[in-house]
C-alpha cells in the first residue's frame, strides 16, 4: 500500500547538484524532501564508503531525507507533480511505497558513464570506469590486480587514482582523444577550470608516483580470455578513432575499466515531459525546464562536472523555492559560476568527444546489447532487412534495449550504430526502475489494494 505525503519541494538525487539544490531551497525556509537511491549522501561523485557509519555531509535542519529510495514514476497533478517512491534496498521484497505531492520538483538525477562495445567487452573483468570507481570508493574493492583504464576524458584519472588507492596496479591509462593539454590550453576553459587545475595536478602526481603510463590516441579494441579477461589488444587511433593498422599491441591484464563520457539519466525528465535538445534537458537561466514547476540541475542539462552541477543546483533550489512562494535573493554568485562552468564544459566536450571510428572496432558477432545478447550483425539486419528504422521497431525486431537495463547501457550506442540521430531515442521509460508486480499493485494511493503488496505467495 502506498501513503501520500505533501512537500513543497522535492529534490531527486543527492549528488553535487541535488545537495546544493536542497540547501539553497531549505535556506529560504521552504519545506524540502530529498530523495536518493544511496544510503548516504553525495551521489556518484562524492561516493562514500558504504562500510562505515559516518556521514560526510550534513543537511539543513528540517530537510526530509529519503535514503535508499527511488522515484519510479512522476505524474502531473493539480498545482504540481506527484512522485511515486519505493524505499528500501533494491532487491528487498519489503520496500515501502510513498507518493509525494510537490509544488516544485528539482531533477538532479545525474548521469552514468558510457561504455563503447568492442570484441570481448562482454567478458567478465571488463567494467565501466564508473563501476570500477564505485567498487573502489564504496566497498574498498579493486576490480583486478592488473587493470587497464581506457576511454576518454578527465574522469579516467580519478578512476585510476581510486584503483591505485585500493591496491590495484594500473598498467596504463589510454585516452582515445589527443592529450589533456587540449582543453587546458583553451584560455576560457583554463580560466573556468581553474579550480580543476589543482585536482588534476594531484592525479598527475599519483600517475608519476606509481609510474602509470598515460597514452593518448590509443584505445582497447579487443579483450581476450576464456572465462574472463586475460589480455587486451590496444591500437593507436587516427583522428576519427579508426585503429591504425600495425599499431596493435597486446597487454596482459585481469581487468579493464572503460569510460567514454557520460549519458544523462533522463527517464524522469522524459516522464515529466521536459523538452530535450541534443539529448539533454533544456533549462533557462533559473534552471527551469519547459514544464512549469520542474527544475533540472547537473549532468541532466549537459556534462560539466561537479562544480558546475553544484552551481546549477544552487540556482535550481532557489528558483524552486521562489516558485513555491518563498522569498529568495537572486543567487548571483552561483549564476556567475554557471556561466564560467559552461565555458569549461564546452571546452571539455570539444576536447573529449566520442568519435565515429569506434564503430569499426565491432565485428559481426560483437554484442551491442548484453542483456538480450544482440550482436552487431543482428542489429544491422533489423534495420536493413526489416525496415526497423525507428527506436521502437528497432527494439522489437532486434531486441536491443529490451532487457533488464532497458537500454541504459546500450541505447546511445544502438542509436548511433543504427543511424538514429537522437541520443535520447532510448531514454523514455515510463517506469523509471523495475518494480515487483505486487509493489505496482499497491502503488495507487487512491485505490484500496485487494492484496497487500507484502503478501507471501
Amino acid at each position, binding site marked *: 500500500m502506498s501513503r501520500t505525503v505533501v512537500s513543497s519541494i522535492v529534490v531527486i538525487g543527492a549528488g553535487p547538484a541535488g545537495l546544493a539544490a536542497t540547501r539553497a531551497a531549505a535556506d529560504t525556509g521552504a519545506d524540502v524532501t530529498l530523495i536518493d537511491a544511496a544510503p548516504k549522501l553525495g551521489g556518484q561523485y562524492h561516493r562514500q564508503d558504504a562500510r562505515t557509519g559516518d556521514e560526510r555531509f550534513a543537511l539543513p535542519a528540517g530537510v526530509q531525507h529519503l535514503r535508499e529510495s527511488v522515484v519510479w514514476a512522476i505524474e502531473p497533478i493539480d498545482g504540481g507533480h506527484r512522485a511515486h517512491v519505493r524505499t528500501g534496498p533494491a532487491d528487498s521484497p519489503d520496500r515501502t511505497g510513498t507518493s509525494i505531492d510537490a509544488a516544485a520538483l528539482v531533477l538532479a538525477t545525474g548521469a552514468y558513464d558510457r561504455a563503447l562495445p568492442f570484441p570481448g567487452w562482454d567478458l567478465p573483468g571488463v567494467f565501466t570506469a564508473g563501476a570500477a570507481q564505485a567498487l573502489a570508493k564504496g566497498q574498498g574493492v579493486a576490480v583486478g590486480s592488473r587493470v587497464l583504464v581506457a576511454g576518454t576524458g578527465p574522469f579516467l584519472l580519478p578512476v585510476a587514482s581510486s584503483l591505485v588507492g585500493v591496491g590495484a596496479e594500473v598498467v596504463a591509462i589510454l585516452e582515445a582523444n589527443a592529450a589533456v593539454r587540449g582543453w587546458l590550453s583553451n584560455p576560457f576553459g583554463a580560466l573556468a577550470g581553474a579550480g580543476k587545475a589543482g585536482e588534476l595536478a594531484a592525479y598527475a602526481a599519483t600517475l608519476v608516483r606509481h609510474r602509470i603510463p598515460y597514452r593518448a590516441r590509443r584505445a582497447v579494441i579487443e579483450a581476450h580470455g576464456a572465462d574472463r579477461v586475460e589480455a587486451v589488444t590496444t591500437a593507436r587511433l587516427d583522428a576519427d578513432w579508426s585503429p591504425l593498422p600495425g599499431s596493435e599491441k597486446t597487454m596482459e591484464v585481469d581487468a579493464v575499466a572503460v569510460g567514454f563520457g557520460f549519458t544523462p539519466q533522463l527517464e524522469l525528465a522524459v516522464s515529466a515531459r521536459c523538452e530535450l535538445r541534443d539529448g539533454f534537458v533544456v533549462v533557462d537561466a533559473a534552471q527551469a525546464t519547459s514544464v512549469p514547476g520542474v527544475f533540472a540541475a547537473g549532468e541532466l542539462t549537459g556534462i560539466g562536472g561537479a562544480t558546475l552541477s553544484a552551481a546549477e543546483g544552487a540556482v535550481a533550489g532557489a528558483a524552486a523555492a521562489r516558485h513555491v512562494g518563498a522569498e529568495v535573493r537572486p543567487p548571483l554568485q552561483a549564476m556567475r559560476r554557471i556561466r564560467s562552468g559552461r565555458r569549461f564544459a564546452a571546452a571539455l566536450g570539444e576536447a573529449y568527444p566520442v568519435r565515429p571510428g569506434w564503430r569499426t572496432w565491432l565485428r559481426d558477432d560483437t554484442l551491442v546489447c548484453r542483456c538480450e545478447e544482440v550482436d552487431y550483425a543482428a542489429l544491422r539486419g533489423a534495420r536493413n*532487412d526489416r525496415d526497423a528504422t525507428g527506436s521502437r521497431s528497432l527494439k522489437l525486431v532486434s531486441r536491443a534495449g529490451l532487457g533488464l537495463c532497458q537500454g541504459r547501457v546500450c541505447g546511445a550506442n544502438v542509436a548511433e550504430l543504427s543511424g538514429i540521430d537522437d541520443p535520447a531515442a532510448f531514454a523514455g521509460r515510463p517506469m523509471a526502475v523495475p518494480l515487483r508486480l505486487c509493489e505496482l499493485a499497491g502503488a495507487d494511493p487512491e485505490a484500496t489494494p485487494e492484496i497487500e503488496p507484502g503478501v507471501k505467495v
Partner: protein
Amino acid sequence: MVSPDIVVIGAGVIGAACAEALSAAGARVTVLDRGAPASGTTAAGEGNVLVSDKAPGPELELAQASRKLWPELLAALAEELGPELADAEWEPKGGLVVATGDESAAPLRDFAGAQRAAGVRADPVTAAEAGALEPHLTKAITAAVHYPEDAQLQPVLAATALLAAVRARGGEVRSGVRAIGIEADAGGAFKAVLTDRGAIACAAVVNACGPWAGAFAADAGAPIAVLPRRGMVLVTAPLPYTVRHKVYDADYVGAVASGDADLQTSTVVESTGTGTILIGSSRQRVGFEERFEVRVLAELARKAQRLFPILARVPVMRAYGGFRPYAPDHLPIIGADPRVPGLWHATGHEGAGIGLAAATGRMIADLYAEKETAVDASPFRVDRPAVIEEVAA
C-alpha cells in the same frame, strides 16, 4: 522511378498486410509511413490472434478467416523470403478464459455456447482441468473455457516480414514520408497521392493510418469517424515457462465491446517467446493523450496478481502504451470510399488489428480486383452511418 499502381499510407500491420496482398495479386505497391514502419499501434500490441473475445457476427467471421489465413501466409512468406526473414514468432498456443466471480460464470458459459454455434472451438473445462492447463492459475475460478484456436505472433516481426515481401516483389517501403492529401484530374478521377516529399502518381490509395486514419481521410476530402482508445501493457522480466496460454478474465469480453470512456481494465496474461510476460490491458478514451497514469498500471498489476498469484514478486521491467483505432460502432472499416474514387480505407480494427490483418489485406486485394471476398465485406463498408454520419454531425 516507375510509378506504383497503389500507394498504401501507414506501414503498420494493417498497411503491411494490405500491401502484401495487393502485391501478391500483381500490383506494384509503395508503402509510406510518416515515421518508421511498424512503430505505432503495431509496436504497442500484444500480438493477439483471437477468436475467443468476439461475439458471433461479422467481426468474428473476419477473425475466423484471419486465424486460418495467418499460418498459411507466414508459411508462404517463409517459402518466398526464407525462414529467418519471415519469422514472426507464430505460436498457436490457445486461450483460456476464466471467470473469477459468481456473476461472470454464467455469462461466460453463454458467450462460449453462442460462439460454438458460430463454429468456434470453445471447450468448457472444469476448475481442475483449467489448473492442469495452467498450473499457476488461481484456484478461485467459477468457470473456464479453453479456446484452442487462439494464437499469438510478434506484431512488429509480422508487419516487417510482410513489408519485406512487398519489397522482394519490386514494391517500395518509404519511412519519414507524410501523406497530406490526394489529387484528382479535371474529370474527378484519382491521379496522385500528395506527400511532403512531392506527389506520387498512382491509381489508388489505401488509408491504413490506424488511429490517425481520420486525419488522412479528412485531408483526402472524405472524413471518416476513427477515434483513438488508449491502452497500456506491462512487461515482466524473463521467467521460466510459467504461463502457457493466453489467459484472460471473462470481463475482457465486456471491455472490448464497450464504448465507455473511463478506464477499463481486464486481465490478459501471456508469455512471449523470450520468456517475458505481457500483462494487459487497459482501455481509455483520452484522445491522443500519452500521459502515463500510475492508477492504470496499478489496476493491471492488481488484476494480474489475482489471476496468477505466483507473479506477485516478479519484476515488471517496463510499461508501454499505444492507441487503438476504433469506429463508433466498433467494427473495422474496410473498402472503397464511395465519395472519392481511388480512395480506400483499412482501419478501425481497435485492439484486434494484428489478428484481423491477414484477412483484411486479403479482403482489400479481392475487393480491388472485384473478386468475391472470402468473408462478407458489406458490414465493414465505408458508407455506413456510424462511420460517415457521425463525422458530419
